[in-house]
């Protein structure tokens, strides 16, 4: 096992210190926004600062009891991102007269409480492996929900929303998690089988047709999302998630090649068949063509205005509250990166991107450290999906790739996205706890954690008599 022994100290005090720093950043940004609008310390400000501080500290306290070896950097990073996201949404509210910040705060609270619930209820991520196929069913349900007549709603041409009691919700965000759980469970159980069978062509070993099942399922889900929900961004996200997890499970580049081949075929066919995909690509390539710029809907006006915003920010930015991010449509959701680039400049935006880099890296670190294959796959999948989402969003805003309507994790206005991403963070925290927790040398603590660990061991050894690394790792416990 290439297991690097990390420090086995809990490091919760460092987390608390960093957390205070993150809160100062987020609340400070919100204060600057208020100062700029000549309304610094009103009730809203204290409610927002108090709520964020209270619930984030609650997470910290829960971690002290439930997962005291969890990575101490993850929670502060996410808190900082959520905090400055709230500040920017508040700032854009002031310019546009919306009141998105209040609902974003409410959703932040809901999402963080959900994260606490995950920490309290699940306790050990390995339990989730039991729910492999249930997760598949839930994923299918979540993806189909927006298509159910009467429940699903089409917003901006994408059929990815459901309306419940006046609230719109994007079930696809949560499907990221359930799909990751399914794939982690399925692949950690079947990876040996998939690995051993198959033909070798040159240096590449290709899988058996029968083992292509999950790959095809992934492909179908992605294409289905693209075709029925008209959501290119989520489609790319799901497919990227599958590809990363299949690669990590098999370590076979051939799978990635097959996947990319399928993507290319699917993408090409989609471009031919579906105008919304073709329009996206056209407004990406010909963004500065007057006809494309003025086309409504589906023109490049949004992306071009976003680029203008970024350009006007330059190196140092205009300063919070001094730019005109309100000139870009969806400034507080899809285009929030452009708003940050404008007001905080290249330096500020780079700092934000570095926070994501650190967050994703800590997720991967948890994947490396944890001893079970399921946890490794799950952590990798969840971390990669955050990274990929950042890539798709920021790449779209900067015209590196076509712009798709995805949220920027933790920052964009949007409850579903916040909820899903905070649950992902809870899972990563649990996995990192398992990864950093010292291997028990004495008798195992007498709590239900033992039961949770023993179940997968039994299952794995029954199914796979050949020794995979994951099985071995679990056995050692």
């Amino acid at each position: 096992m290439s297991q690097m022994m990390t420090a086995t100290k809990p490091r919760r005090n460092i987390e608390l210190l960093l957390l205070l720093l993150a809160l100062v950043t987020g609340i400070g940004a919100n204060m600057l926004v208020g100062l700029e609008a000549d309304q610094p310390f009103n009730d809203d400000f204290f409610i927002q600062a108090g709520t964020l501080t209270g619930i984030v500290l609650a997470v910290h306290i829960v971690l002290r009891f439930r997962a005291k070896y969890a990575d101490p950097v993850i929670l502060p990073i996410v808190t900082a991102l959520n905090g400055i996201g709230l500040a920017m949404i508040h700032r854009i509210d002031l310019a546009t007269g919306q009141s998105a910040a209040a609902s974003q705060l409410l959703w932040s609270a809901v999402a963080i409480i959900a994260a606490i619930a995950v920490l309290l209820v699940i306790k050990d991520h390995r339990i989730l492996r039991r729910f492999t196929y249930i997760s598949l069913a839930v994923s299918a349900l979540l993806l189909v929900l927006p298509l159910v007549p009467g429940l699903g709603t089409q917003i901006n041409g994408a059929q990815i929303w459901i309306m419940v009691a006046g609230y719109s919700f994007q079930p696809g965000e949560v499907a990221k998690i359930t799909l990751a759980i399914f794939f982690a469970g399925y692949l950690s159980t079947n990876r040996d089988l998939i690995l051993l069978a198959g033909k070798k062509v040159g240096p590449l070993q290709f899988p058996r047709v029968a083992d292509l099942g999950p790959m095809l399922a992934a492909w179908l889900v992605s294409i289905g999302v693209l075709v029925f929900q008209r959501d290119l961004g989520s489609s790319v996200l799901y497919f990227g998630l599958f590809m990363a997890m299949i690669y990590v499970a098999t370590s076979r580049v051939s799978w990635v090649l097959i996947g990319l081949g399928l993507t290319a075929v699917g993408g090409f066919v989609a471009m031919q068949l579906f105008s919304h995909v073709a329009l996206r690509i056209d407004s990406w390539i010909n963004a500065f063509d007057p006809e494309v710029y003025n086309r409504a809907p589906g023109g490049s006006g949004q992306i071009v205005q976003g680029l203008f915003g970024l350009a006007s920010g330059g190196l140092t930015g205009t300063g919070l509250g001094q730019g005109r991010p309100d000139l870009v449509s969806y400034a507080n959701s899809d285009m929030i990166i452009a708003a940050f680039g404008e007001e905080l400049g290249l330096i500020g935006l780079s700092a934000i991107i570095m926070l994501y880099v650190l967050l994703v890296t800590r997720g991967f670190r948890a994947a490396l450290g944890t001893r079970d294959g399921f946890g490794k796959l799950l952590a990798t999948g969840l971390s990669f999906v955050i990274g990929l989402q950042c890539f798709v969003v920021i790449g779209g805003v900067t015209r590196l790739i076509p712009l798709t309507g995805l949220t920027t994790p933790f920052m964009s206005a949007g409850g579903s996205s916040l909820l899903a991403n905070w649950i992902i963070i809870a899972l990563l925290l649990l996995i990192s706890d398992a990864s950093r927790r010292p291997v028990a040398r004495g008798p195992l603590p007498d709590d239900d954690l033992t039961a949770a660990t023993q179940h997968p061991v039994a299952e794995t050894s029954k199914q796979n008599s050949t020794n995979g690394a994951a099985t071995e790792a679990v056995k050692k416990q």
Partner: protein
Amino acid sequence: MNQAIRNTWVIAIAMFALVLGAVTYVQFFAADELKANAWNNRQLYKQFGSDRGSILVDGKQIAFSEPSNDQFNYQRVYDPGGLYAHLTGYFSLVYGATALEDVMGEELSGEASELFIDRAMAMLSGNQPRGYSVGLTIDPELQKIAHDVLGNHSGAVVVMDPENGDILAMASTPTYDPNKLAGHNTSEVVENYEQITSASKNPLYNRAIEGDLYAPGSVFKIIDTVAALESDEYSPDSTLQNPQQIDFGGYSLPNYAQGGCAAQSEASFAFALQQSCNTPFANIALELGGERIQAEAQEFGFGQKLSIPLRVTPSVFPDDLEGAALAQSAIGQRDVRTTPLQIAMMSAAIANDGTIMKPQLVDTVRSPDLEPVSSPEPQTFSTPTSPEIANQVTEWMVGVVDEGIGSSAAIPGVEVAGKTGTAELAVPGQNNSWFTGFAPADDPQAVVSIVVSDVDVQTGGQIVGPGAKRLLEAVLNQ
């Protein structure tokens, strides 16, 4: 499996690297190009969306920014619109900024480099950066009279304090309403602009300092007179030849038939100026030569760049003149072109002992908290002649008003110095009528320069002389 995790991490990092590269490209390398893009209204929004400073006359705002409920946040307002249009100019989304809105743009927007320290202090103290206000030297009462004097005619008026160069009034007609060009509805602004500029006399020109300029006619004789007195060939007592006409073989330059010039075939400077005879001054120019007349004109400001801080079109006295062309030019005809401000500067030199103070329209620039930050000091523009000659010419100019053809400008109990001018235009019977002068002659409070164009002699005379009288009276009554 761990190796695959590491590889996947590398891919994730590679994606972030790509994204960082893209952000750097857009925000740094491509930023200038994107900022210059025609679709990029951000600079405009920034410029137009700021609380721009006011332009003030005697403490009252004549141009200011008012909060508006559109995406620009502020609307520029001109009050009263037409009276100060040529001074303020307009601040238009479509046509940019003109006049003071243009030349004082950095102060009005608060971005001038000399205001850097103030700006930094404002930033540190948490104040919003706001524009600086610009106070003018204009006297609102004189400005109204100046407009009134011109009435429906096309022309211009300049009233100036000869001792410090302060411009007390500067009017140009026809005028326009800058509010019509400062609106945020661009199609409406374009329509208004086309309507304004379709007039036969373009109202956008500030005729006092720019536009097609005017032939000065006889007011130019002051420069001939100074040139003569500065030369060795003439003295104040010289007797000038005053033939009824000068023949140039095919063309002859006459004295004005209806004036008093015909009474004498020889004339003193006093008489020649009083009756505005042409041939004595043509003779002076022919004797001194074109170069010396041109040099004298240049000392008075012809051909020189000037900003007050509005940019003034230099007046023109052509090169290499001789014969008939020189004779005609000496009486302000042919290709000599001037601005009413230049003529006011000429009178100011006579009024101020031979020294022209640089004309100045801006009195004080004030910070948003009304602290004065700069206030132009009076500067000498040039010294075209000596106090002796200036006083001599003043005396003769008093005679023009007291005994000569400028009597319509006379003010009871006050010595007014003046000179009339009439320049013939290409259309027969149409003239530019001029009056320039100052009062009181011994202690000049203000110089006046008035021109109306495209009028017959009588109409012009009824406007410019009495107009000057009204303006000078208003100054003296203060």
